[in-house]
């Protein structure tokens, strides 16, 4: 990751210095051979964390027809060096999982994956040993200024997260980090009424006979946790001590809506094999060569999966054997200088529409949430402003859970 950012700077530096930003970058789509091979892609990992573990099988797609092409009906099994085996089950197209109570990675043992596709082709990864874990010392955050992605002329303020590790036991330790972010977000509207197929007595306040919610904040505050789609890796190969200090990981610009309230990250710090590290490092370098002044020659990066009958077949991806530890959550407050816009989704107050919704809604879409809108007539004193029930057509704007988060506040959320 670092190397790439560096290259970007190098390019920008050279050009800017001598040609005062005379250079330019523009979108351009070259003519490409669209009849690309469909190559097997294996994406999986076993760790010392409890299962279930997942292996994803898919085919690569042509560059201009970017798609995930899951491979179903394959047989996937996990094998360790003691001869234990567990067969994975396809839980969704292309996703194969072990059982929660099945094998769990043990430090010191070696593991490999076996795959047989429905066309009979057999693949295997090499055995890799589960390395000893290395604990995270802590996570740090710093306000920082960085160049915007794909825009060499703009600075961005944001949070830069860093990781520190404890000293590893092995001098050459290959680190790989996965980051989970958690952020708080709010619905556009508070829920005042809901409809679950049952009508209540009509009042002035409740002209449609809807159910009144007890706590209007329910489903207003949500927290979403998701992996950050970035790969971070580093090796202590050249360091005098196998320890990570202030290694920059994720950067999030202040303008990102996720920072509006509070924002937190959690890091899974893995120790992986040298081979796996090389794979990730090359993948990162090749996929983030944002600039191109001094790039290296790209090539096909193959992982550790081989066709047992045809070693020439290119297989993409990697089955990783990784020993992990989790960091604590690092919580940041909202940046004070930024004003986030608050576009409200459309809420409909027309009684025709509301009656229509109530009458035609399917039970499967229950509950349907309604809010109050306050109409402020400029000729009327504020206290007498009309309160009108409104239907929010995009229910995810009133039920925050529908945007993928949970309404349950994480226990670490408050300081």
């Amino acid at each position: 990751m670092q190397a790439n950012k560096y290259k970007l700077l190098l390019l920008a530096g050279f050009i800017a210095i001598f040609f005062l930003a005379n250079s330019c970058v523009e979108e351009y789509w070259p003519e490409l051979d669209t009849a690309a091979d469909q190559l097997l892609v294996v994406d999986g990992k076993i760790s010392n964390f409890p299962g279930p573990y997942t292996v994803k099988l898919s085919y690569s797609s042509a560059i201009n027809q970017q798609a995930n092409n899951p491979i179903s009906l394959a047989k996937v099994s996990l094998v360790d060096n003691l001869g234990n085996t567990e067969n994975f089950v396809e839980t969704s197209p292309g996703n194969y999982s072990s059982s929660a109570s099945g094998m769990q990675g043990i430090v010191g043992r070696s593991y490999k994956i076996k795959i047989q596709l429905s066309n009979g082709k057999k693949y295997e990864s090499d055995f890799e040993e589960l390395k000893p874990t290395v604990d995270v010392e802590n996570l740090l955050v710093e306000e920082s200024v960085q160049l915007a992605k794909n825009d060499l002329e703009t600075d961005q303020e944001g949070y830069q997260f860093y990781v520190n590790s404890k000293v590893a036991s092995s001098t050459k330790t290959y680190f790989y980090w996965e980051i989970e972010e958690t952020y708080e977000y709010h619905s556009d509207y508070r829920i005042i009424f809901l409809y679950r197929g049952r009508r209540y007595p009509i009042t002035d306040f409740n002209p449609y006979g809807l159910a009144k919610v007890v706590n209007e904040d329910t489903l207003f505050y949500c927290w979403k946790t998701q992996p950050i789609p970035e790969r971070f890796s580093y090796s202590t190969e050249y360091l005098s001590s196998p320890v990570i200090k202030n290694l920059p990981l994720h950067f999030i610009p202040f303008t990102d809506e996720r920072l509006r309230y509070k924002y937190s990250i959690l890091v899974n710090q893995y120790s992986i094999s040298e081979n796996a590290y090389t794979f990730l490092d090359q993948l990162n370098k090749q996929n983030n060569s944002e600039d191109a002044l001094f790039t290296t020659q790209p090539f096909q990066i193959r992982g550790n999966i081989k066709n047992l009958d045809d070693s020439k077949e290119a297989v993409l991806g990697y089955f990783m054997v990784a020993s992990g530890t989790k960091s604590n959550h690092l919580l940041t407050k909202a940046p004070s200088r930024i004003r986030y816009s608050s576009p409200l989704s459309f809420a409909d107050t027309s009684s025709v529409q509301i009656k229509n919704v109530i009458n035609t809604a399917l039970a499967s879409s229950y509950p349907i949430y309604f809010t109050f809108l306050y109409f402020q007539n400029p000729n009327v004193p504020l206290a007498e402003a009309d309160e009108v029930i409104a239907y929010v057509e995009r229910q995810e704007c009133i039920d925050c859970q529908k945007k993928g988060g949970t309404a349950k506040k994480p226990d670490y959320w408050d300081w």
Partner: protein
Amino acid sequence: MRKRILSLAIMLFWISSFGQSQSKTNEQIKLPHSYSNLLWSTFVQKIEHNYPLQFFYQFSEIPEFVVSFDSDSIELKVVLNEQLIQYNVFASFDNKGNVFLTKNGSISSQLPSYFFNAAISNTTEESSEFTDQNYIKTIQEFVAQSVVVGTKEKGVNKLTATINGIAINSLSGQAITEATIVDLISGKGVVTDSKGNYKLTLNIGKHVLKISSVNIVEKQIEVDLQSDGVLNLSLDDKIFLLKDVIVNAEKENNIRSTKMGFDKVSAKSVKKIPLVFGEKDIVKVALLLPGVQTVGEGSSGFNVRGSPTDQNLFYINHVPIYNTSHAAGFFSAFNADVVDEFSLFKSNIPLQYGGRISSVFEIKTKTGSKEKITARGGIGPITGRLTVEGPLKKEKSSFLIGVRSTYSDWVLNFIKDPIIKNSHAQFADAITNFSFQLNDYNQLNLFSYFSTDKMNIYTQSKYDYQNFGGSVSWMHYFKNKNSFELSLVHSAYAFNEENNQLEIASYSHNNQLQHTELKAIFEFVPRHNHHFQFGLNSTLYQIDKGIYEPLSALSLINTTSLGTEKGLESALFLSDDWKINENLSFQGGLRFNQFTYFGPQDVNKYRDGMPFTDENLVEVLHFNDWESIKSYSGLDFRFALNHLLTENISVKAAYNRLHQFIYMLSNTIAVSPNYRWKLSDYNTKPIVGDQITLGVYSNLWNSNYEFSLETYYKFSQNIVEIKDGANFFLNENMEQTSLQGNLNAFGAELMFKKLKGRLNGWINYTYSNSKVLVNSPFAENRINYGQPYPSNYDKPHAFNLVANYDFSRRVSFSGNIVYSTGRPITYPTAVYYYGGIPTLSYSSRNEYRLPDYFRVDVSLNVEGNLLKRKLGHGSWSFSVYNLLGRKNAFSVYFEENEGLIKAYKLSIFGAPIVSVTYNFKLGNYASE
């Protein structure tokens, strides 16, 4: 016009026919014994005492020097001319016993007033064998001169006679090399050698010799050849005519010499060519010649005929330069103001050079004027430059100092852009050149070169690199036109890097290469149709691979020394230019190379024939200091034949082989500044290159146009390619990062030049192909799956047009049109999801191409007034680089953005670059 000159000549001849016999006898006075270590003034006294002669000359023109010659019975005239050529003074005799020693051999035009009274009636009546008719210069530019060579007596019963002599610059006294001398009557011609000497055998009788070369005014001389004799040629610098011929005027040379794949460009001739930021850059002009390519703007070095950049050898006055770029390749490291000319050998590299298989760029700097102190300089948007030159001791020794530096760094401070604000870049270069004429036969040159670059990018990384070099060369001339040159050269290249991107891994690393070379060349001209050159050279390479050190207390980088390496490359060579007959000439020879790789070194020994991996490591061999680790030898050869089909058409063929024992380690597509040099070693074999060249050369329409077609096929073995994904950082086993393979290249280069007239310039088209193959029985030792792939700089079609139009002598317009096929590029062929991130998969190397490259540059040059004698001269150059603002792709890259793969095109010059440059030169002509 012609008629008038003829009649004038006839008149002069008629007048001169009186008393001719007497003058002949005077100049035929033979000196009976040798003289040694006689001061010039004493010599003159002695002669005046012993013979009925009186000398007339201006003391300031002939300083005191030591007269020595050892053969008995030499004609006085010959002695005088031999001794005085160094001052450009020639002797004329009359029938009254007067001897006139005059500058530039031009009695008639520059008749010194001091002997006017004494000799007025006799001078034009001649006798002087060298009657210059310069005074009609106002009437016609090319002046016919009448010269009698030899004597009738000696020529009796002979059909042919040989003229020999030296061609020198009338102002600086420097020898003019590569000048072409052609007899317009018989069509015979020769080219002066590297010391300016020539020999030409012609039938006895009248001839018209035409002399031409890059920087000089073409001259025609009528010669009445009576017997063997000397004809020294004093030629005028072209600058006073202000007729700019753009590229070299080696017209006859083009068809007569055996040189192939050869280009010579003089600094003067290319000064109007528009370049980036108006930065005069003679070496960048090479890119407008056929067969020379680069990966793109901002890439160091050149690719000559499909070869990688490390196969070119750059010499500036004997000093090899290992990084020829400033600012990561945007500018070349040679200040055009100090460069006199450069020669590029793309094929049949002279045997005195070896060690690089693709090309030699030989840059010759100016030598300081021995006459007067003068200065020149210029100011452009990026750099300022200043050159001062002059005599140390008048007519004896001279100095030249040239410096160039960026001064624009401060501009960066005014710019708000975050990267620029936090970045700095500077470069500078300097040369000094001292020349001493020790005496008639010995010349000493001291030359030094320095260049430095500093880059500080966004405060995160710093680069700086320096070239230092110096040469001492001693040239000894033997009387019989043979010569000996001994040079001692040292060149060093140092690269330092500081990297502060990541605190725990911040480091500094420096590496250095030292090149120490001894070279001795003996030129031997036994007969007029042979010209031998033999000698030896020996180069000691010392590479300090450097130490990685932590940059701060917080850095955890292990201090690691990568060690040093040493190698000695020695060669013996012999070459001959052999004029087999009128129409057939041969040039060729052998060069035996011996390379020894020395300790101290710990060498990894791998299992025989197995890939260099840790698994195959058998043992580590230890070698002590100067212990031979591995020796390689190789025989280079060059053979070239020139067959003159007609007076204006020749065909040439050449076959040659070269060896190379040093190569560059760079894992980037465009060569980045942090490349390193590496010697062939225990595990890495030397590079061997073969080339076959065939060509047709023609001069058309009275030699105003020059046309050539050259085709070549090259095959290089053991070229070093970097493995996919190789990591150089802190790598102590570099042999594990590289593979050796073959490079095949072929092409055809079509060149058409218009040398004269208001509109002059050249057009060339090149078709070429360059493919690399790295294959092995082991999959890990293959690149691109063992299939051939185009080299990074393979651009099949290239077209260059360079034109200059003179509106008047003061205003001219120049333009370039550059077209080439886009360079090869590797594009992703597939996309897949790994870890939820769209990820690219690349397959075959260099399978695609960037869009074609097209660029138009223009410049308008306005010269100051044309007075020949004035204090200073200024000129303005307004130029626009990339006039059309075409966004030529430097590269195309792919990137995931919000979950989607997008492609972006990067152009380095996305808009026209306008610049104004002011050049000046001072000259105290008045004080002469």
